[in-house]
């Protein structure tokens, strides 16, 4: 099986079978990654360019490692401090890169929809590594893989997503994915950090964290995105921690075997208590990072299959 679309721009475009396909393949890459020799030649000869218009260490490293383990030639473009500063538009940057004939373009951008725009102008496969407050599809997929491995399934679970939902692309992609896979979703946040129109999302909404966590199988914490806020969303970090920070007491309302997740980087003592984050019996935060590499390998593998098939068809066309 392959993906229907050329790009991976969001979870919104994926069907439940496609999601399952990605997770199944990622499971196999987890095994590969745990071996001593981790190399594969699935992407041999292909060029992968990581274009990060917004600074990122973790996601960029994860994509870079994923590409290298599959044998691609990987290049990192630190666009945040290059030609964009000289006034070049996003489209021109994309066209310039496109002329260098990359096969996989991994893009992160601070504006929602920017990756969609860029994808419409290039003829390689584009992976969205996060655009503004819109989507971060590989994060939702790695979260899904983590949940599936911990819980044995990715359906019929009660998942509580807590924290800065308004500013979070991780929350949006997770909402869409977990919704498509038919889970029960709860959003827990102070009303100022809920996105407008949230009442139409089809989720249960809570501003009381203890009630929201009651009976949850999965507790997904979000980072308080101070850099996306223009002030005044919460009274103070200490009050936020008191009401919405995940500590042992609040976690006791969830199911005894509930897992704790966080997309990182964490603000310890703001949205999550350090002890909970480090509790190997509850926290799967490190596992999420590991799954990230495997999921990104799976996504790039599947997109590359499409590229090869397309080029094969084109070559046959030339010969005929």
């Amino acid at each position, binding site marked *: 099986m392959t993906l229907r679309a050329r790009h991976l721009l969001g979870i919104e475009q994926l069907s439940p079978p496609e999601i399952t396909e990605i997770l199944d393949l990622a499971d196999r890459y987890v095994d590969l990654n745990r071996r001593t020799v981790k190399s594969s030649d699935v992407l041999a000869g292909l060029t992968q360019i990581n274009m990060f218009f917004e600074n990122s260490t973790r996601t960029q490293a994860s994509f870079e490692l994923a590409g290298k383990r599959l044998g691609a030639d990987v290049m990192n473009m630190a666009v945040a401090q290059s030609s964009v500063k000289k006034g070049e538009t996003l489209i021109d940057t994309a066209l310039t890169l496109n002329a260098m004939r990359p096969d996989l373009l991994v893009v992160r951008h601070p*504006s*929602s*929809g920017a990756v969609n*725009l860029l994808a419409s102008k290039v003829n390689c496969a584009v992976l969205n590594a996060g655009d503004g407050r819109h*989507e971060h599809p590989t994060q939702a997929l790695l979260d899904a893989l983590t949940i599936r491995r911990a819980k044995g399934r990715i359906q019929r679970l009660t998942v509580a997503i807590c924290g800065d939902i308004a500013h979070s692309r991780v929350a949006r992609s997770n909402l869409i994915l977990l919704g498509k896979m038919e889970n029960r979703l709860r959003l827990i946040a102070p009303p100022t950090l809920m*996105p*407008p*129109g949230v009442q*139409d999302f089809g989720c249960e909404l809570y501003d009381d964290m203890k009630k929201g966590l009651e009976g949850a199988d999965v507790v997904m914490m979000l980072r308080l995105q101070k850099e996306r806020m223009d002030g005044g969303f919460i009274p103070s970090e200490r009050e936020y921690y008191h009401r919405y920070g995940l500590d042992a007491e609040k976690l006791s309302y969830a199911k005894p075997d509930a897992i704790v997740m966080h997309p990182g980087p964490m603000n310890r003592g703001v949205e999550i208590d350090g002890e909970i984050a480090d509790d190997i019996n509850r926290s799967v935060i490190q596992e999420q990072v590991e799954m990230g590499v495997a999921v990104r390998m799976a996504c790039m593998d599947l997109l590359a299959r499409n590229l090869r098939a397309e080029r094969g068809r084109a070559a046959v066309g030339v010969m005929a």
Partner: protein
Amino acid sequence: MDNTTELLHLTNARLIDPEGLTQELGSLTVLNGQIVARNAAAPKGAEVLDCAGLCLAPGIVDWGVKIGEPGERHRESFRSAGLAAAAGGVTTIIARPDTLPAIDTPETLEFVTRRAVESVVRIRHMAALTKGRAGQEMTEIGFLLDAGAVAFSDVFHVSTNTKALARAFTYARSLGALVVGHPQEPGLSAGAAATNSKFASLRGLPGVHPMAERLGLDRDLGLVEMTGVRYHADQITTAGALPSIVRAKERGLDVTAGVSIHHLTLNDFDVGDYRTFFKLTPPLRSEDDRLAIVQALAEGVIDIVASFHTPADEESKRLPFEEAVSGAVGLQTLLPAALRLVHSGDLDLPSLWRTLSLNPAKRLGLAQGRLAEGAPADLVLFDPDAPFVLDRFKLASKSKNTPFDGMRMEGKVHATWVAGSQVYKG
């Protein structure tokens, strides 16, 4: 343009009369740029044009058109705007002062008045209400009136300095000047690219609550009550703002309201996957709001429909949605888009023409908008049912940023006359 005829007899036309609210077959006789007779026999020596039963209506008075002179002539010039207007049945453009620099001195106003002769349709200018449209100090309202300003507006810039605004309103009141406000609470709408909704949130776009419009309107109406100034709200686009307009009119304040054709015919879902041609000021609203505004238009709560023609080059639109500029061209699409309201059964043609032509002319003290004897022969002949698919590259405007690109529309202009001279032949 060179088809000037002293004596013209237009016969067998469906006369759309926004004053009498009638639409009957008849004829018009035009002499020296004026309508001299209605349903009279063709005078001797007249050029007779058989209109074959097509609609003949007063030309549209399009209030709030951005022309790129001075400063942004690559986006639109008086010449290109005039051609687009003529092709769209617009015979009078009321131009906006949000140019570079703003039209905030009599000298700038004289400059654009001189430049405007390049247009084949009539151009009247609004001037800025405050210097540099900054909302701090009023402009020379008296001098600007003398130089021909028809109204005063800071366009989409909303002043937070209510005291300065109160002074400008008071001064404008003493001169009988008409002030145009943009009802929007600037703090609440800061940074917004869409209207708050599930849809905008899932797209990750920063939104504004529709309440920002009512808050802005209520502030302005408070100042109107305080100062007695003549006031026009440029665009009312939300249901929540309508009761304030109704109340103000009931209490006898000299208040009118307008709306853009885009907010009457499109909604926030049309933005789809970040289509920047649908990024407007204010942002497109929900379907519930759109329906309420259409009803308010039919009931006369909203008086005026305009295109809010805002030319933007491709570069300023080919950007991520939040970074792209707002606005759409509309001079040439106003008529077919407005006819959607007729085809949907919401308004009849004469009532629609009231909002497109008679009402704006009356509000601005212009003689246009009527088919009566003595009225200027600014006319449009059109087929309201002719279907076509809009191709944006065929628009006469220098900028092609229309949200209607590729859409099916009905309504084709066959001819446009300004002061009895034919300026467009379709």
